């Protein structure tokens, strides 16, 4: 086992890793920027090293400083958390070179999954369904028409250089394709300077459902079921749950096996998440694989009873997985609301000092947070202040618990999106499980973006 783990992160996930290390009896080293000198991860780690000024690039993204901190403290492993350097193949490589274990997959798997088109090809080869689309840029209207016929309508035309919804055109029937193609081309030209356009099957009202996998160095890969993450705002998840009310037992087995296949195809080790786009008929398509622990891992922990962060550490230390696929049993239902320091109406970030705080407790409540009374929510870093999770025997019990938990969240001095979450908990669509990635656009239509589809 490791003797000492350096946590190359801050905030709640740094604490989450510290809790796991403490439970395993492993010493911890926190690193921090000057802005986080008062942070709880600094206080509760066994040691702490200041690695630079507040700006990420000079501290939490500063690989030499982090490696140096590991060296001067004698840490034999680095846990990257999520965000920051967690998907840096380069850090994983440097760790290898410095004889420090990187707690995550190997650099090859990180790099491959980080390259979306390589990942897509690899997955296709492995038999993992990806969204059908043109192999590359479409030459002309004729090529587009041929491709669309093969794939089937509706399709979406996308600017190759695009992003943010610009140059996108949904086409629902063949006669509309030609004009749409030309329009997309000229839009792409105008917006990005290149007219290149490609085509994909358009998924109406898709859900974002992801599968948690865990793999050891012995080649064993186990999936821990799905998380429904369709409640998003601008591709930022804000509510996650497990299980998804849409996923049947059969579908879970199929998606789970597919995720395991995906992981095996890249010799994956450690925790990872395979994200799928799921259409209303239950067809699912590979979107990407996140090669790290995720923000929302807690809901999976609640329904499976497994500690994913401890498992990450054990697997990195060479232990076999502590469970086989047959040992994974799902019980009850868990929800997570991300409590962000932001205005619940305008979503403008609201950093500041939390002058007074009250957090919920009682049965079925889990809170992961770095917040405490008098703490500063720094303007330098992301706005996630707390992950409020509830657990119940069924979805309605976890919703009821989430409601009463949100009712008593007090964070004076900053604004949070807790009131937004509270309203969502009363929304008929949410309660009925009628979710897709456009849920938030319907829920707060005044905030609707110009973008057509983009998910």
């Amino acid at each position, binding site marked *: 086992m490791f003797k000492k783990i350096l946590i190359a992160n801050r905030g709640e996930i740094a604490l989450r890793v510290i809790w796991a290390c403490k439970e395993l009896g492993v010493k911890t080293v926190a690193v921090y920027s000057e802005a986080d000198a*008062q942070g709880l991860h600094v*206080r*509760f780690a*066994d*040691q702490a*090293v200041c690695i630079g000024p507040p700006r990420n690039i000079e501290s939490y993204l500063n690989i030499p400083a982090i490696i*140096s901190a590991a060296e*001067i403290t004698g840490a034999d492993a680095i846990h990257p958390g999520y965000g920051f350097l967690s998907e840096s193949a380069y850090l994983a490589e440097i760790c290898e070179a410095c004889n420090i274990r990187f707690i995550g997959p190997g650099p090859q798997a990180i790099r491959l999954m980080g390259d979306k088109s390589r990942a897509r090809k690899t997955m296709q080869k492995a038999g993992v369904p990806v969204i059908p689309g043109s192999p590359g840029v479409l030459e002309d209207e004729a090529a587009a028409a041929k491709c669309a016929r093969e794939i089937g309508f509706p399709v979406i035309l996308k600017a190759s250089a695009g992003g943010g919804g610009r140059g996108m055109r949904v086409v629902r029937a063949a006669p509309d394709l030609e004009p749409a193609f030309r329009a997309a081309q000229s839009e792409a030209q105008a917006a990005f300077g290149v007219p290149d356009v490609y085509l994909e099957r358009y998924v109406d009202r898709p859900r974002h459902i992801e599968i948690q996998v865990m793999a050891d160095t012995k080649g064993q890969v186990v999936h821990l079921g799905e998380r429904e993450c369709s409640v998003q705002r601008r591709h930022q998840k804000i509510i996650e749950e497990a299980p998804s009310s849409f996923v049947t037992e059969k579908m879970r087995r199929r998606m789970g096996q597919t995720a395991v296949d995906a992981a095996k195809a890249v010799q994956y080790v450690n925790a990872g998440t395979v994200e799928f786009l799921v259409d209303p008929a239950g067809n699912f398509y590979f979107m990407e694989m996140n090669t790290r622990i995720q923000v929302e891992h807690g809901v999976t922990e609640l329904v499976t009873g497994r500690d994913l962060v401890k498992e990450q550490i054990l697997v990195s230390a060479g232990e076999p997985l502590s469970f086989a696929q047959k040992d994974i049993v799902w019980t009850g239902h868990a929800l997570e609301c991300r409590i962000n320091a932001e205005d619940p109406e305008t979503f403008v970030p609201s950093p500041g000092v939390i002058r007074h705080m009250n957090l919920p407790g009682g049965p079925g409540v889990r809170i992961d947070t770095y917040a405490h009374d008098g703490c500063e929510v720094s303007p330098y870093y992301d706005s996630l202040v707390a992950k409020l999770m509830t657990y119940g025997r069924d979805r309605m019990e976890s919703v009821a618990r989430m409601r009463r938990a949100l009712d008593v969240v007090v964070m004076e001095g900053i604004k949070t999106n807790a009131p937004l979450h509270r309203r969502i908990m009363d929304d008929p669509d949410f309660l009925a499980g009628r979710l897709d990635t456009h849920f938030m656009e319907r829920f707060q239509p005044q905030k609707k973006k110009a973008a057509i589809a983009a998910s």
Partner: protein
Amino acid sequence: MDLKELKEILQILEEKEITDFELEEEGMKLRIRKGPAASANHASAPILAPLVASVLPSLGGPVSAAAQASPAAVGAAATPTAEAEPGVTLVKSPIVGTFYRTPDPSAPPFVDVGDHIRVGQVLCIIEAMKLMNEIEAEVAGEVVKVHRESGQPVQYGDALFSIRADR
């Protein structure tokens, strides 16, 4: 004074964490106070203080987590912020690593207390990721203190030398 100037002043006060400010100029008087009344109770200060981290000292030998968690054990902030005297410049470590005063174990130190140094002169080496990083003086003056011993680990911002700058 216009609003823009006022905003700038307030911005500076905030950055510098100033709680009391008075300015008198021809025909103008400005007084700003922040937070709870200065006289008595600094509501936030005592609240935050106990959560100040123990830092570098723990590099020497791990501090038990239990001891850290006990409010009593975390009285002193350990980062050597070492307020410089007037005219004395603090050279702080720009990187994390191991501090060396000599180019190699048998050599004499780059600089010592009492030495007069010039701008650009190498003061020490900090080893980080097997690289030897020479730290150069940014002011000319006299070395009045060496804050660290050779071979010790240093973190970002740790005081290394005090230099009494030439005038």
